[in-house]
């Protein structure tokens, strides 16, 4: 293996030692909360909002906004990483764990993957093993306030251990599938899985 290319005269900013091992390769820490979306921010009225789980399940389920707020919720504090190279540490959210949501359906034996789909037509794909056991939640509050529309409100999926394009904004449901089907960004040059620790950015 050839030695890495060294950039003449570059020393860079050094991150604090205690945070260094929380930042995936190629990422830098931001105190900002950048907004990145492919198109205009959709406006979703709470009276029209629903969240459903469908596909390879014995019976699909659907919640209205009022019903969703009745589900057991938790506070989550997580680090998030965007493929555009920024990482934000200790972001705090309130929402419902995917374990709680999936407990309301009976998964078909063949259900190995899911597609999360959103109100603006956005989709992203995930293996079920990446969203169970406390790894994912549907969030409706960020930093103690209702989730703002630019950041995916009324509710978004949050899967902090993968690049943040997997955390579908304006999420309206999950479809359980047998095969992994590339979603919006996965069909536009981005990695099918998206693990920041392996720098799975592009396809």
């Amino acid at each position: 293996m050839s030695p890495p290319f060294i950039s003449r005269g570059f020393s860079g900013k050094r991150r604090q030692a205690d945070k260094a091992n929380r930042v995936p390769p190629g990422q830098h820490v931001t105190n900002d909360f950048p907004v990145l979306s492919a198109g205009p921010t959709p406006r979703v009225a709470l009276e029209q909002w629903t969240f459903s789980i469908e596909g390879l399940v014995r019976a699909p389920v659907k919640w209205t906004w009022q019903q969703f707020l009745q589900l057991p919720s938790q506070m989550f504090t997580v680090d998030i990483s965007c493929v555009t190279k920024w990482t934000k540490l200790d972001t705090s959210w309130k929402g419902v764990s995917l374990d709680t949501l999936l407990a309301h359906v009976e998964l078909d034996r063949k259900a190995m993957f899911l597609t999360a789909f959103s109100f603006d037509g956005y989709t992203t794909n995930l293996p079920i093993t990446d969203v169970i056991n406390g790894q994912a939640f549907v969030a409706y509050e960020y930093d103690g306030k209702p989730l703002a529309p630019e950041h995916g409100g009324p509710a978004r999926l949050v899967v902090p251990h993968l690049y943040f394009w997997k955390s579908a904004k304006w999420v309206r449901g999950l479809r359980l599938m047998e095969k992994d089907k590339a979603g919006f960004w996965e069909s536009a040059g981005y990695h099918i899985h998206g693990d920041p620790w392996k720098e799975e950015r592009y396809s």
Partner: protein
Amino acid sequence: MKQALEWQIATVKRIKPETAKVKTFTLALPDWTPHRAGQHYDIRLTAEDGYQAQRSYSIASEPERRGEVDLSIEKIDDGEVSPYMHDVLVEGDRIEVRGPIGGYFVWQATAREPLLLVAGGSGIVPLMAMVRHRAAARARVPTRLLYSSRTRDDVIYYDELETLRTRADGLEVFHTLTRGQPAGWTGYTRRIDSAMLTEVAKPLGKTAQVFICGPTLLVENAANGLVQLGLKPAQIRTERFGPTGA
């Protein structure tokens, strides 16, 4: 977008100041592939002790210019990569890059729909690649660029846009200067708003394809404004530059 993206070592062929804060870096690529206007390259810097920093920068040049790409980069004062690019890098230096990347915020000159480009500040860069590609491909699709800058001195590519505009091949350019205007200025003098969008967008009609790039607030306002004018969200593609990613 099927090829595996590998890092390659490019050579800095030319560095050209555009404005007080923006320079264009022409990089000669040993492994150049034609890009699409709107795509970007990743840059990776490595220090002697192995510390690395990476950032993405939009390609400013047209794919018709083979073997090299232009990246126009704004210096962010407390940034990590842009100060290195501006203050340390010289012509002849080598730099590690990977690309081209991006499969959605792209425009090809074979497109038939009228084109509306809305830029704020350094958001002009990927849109300039579209304008240059359009000119190189001799496309004649009706195109309007609405470009917001603080002052005349902050406008990147001003002279080139003037030259392209006067070709009268269907490209029109509208500037708005929000903080100060030179004597005799006849362009807009305020932040982009619904009235401005209506004036600029209306002649392009309901089938216009729109690309908006710039700071988040400008992009939000312009995108929402155009949706309110009756354009469908699917017609509008956005790319937002935060104050981060420096």
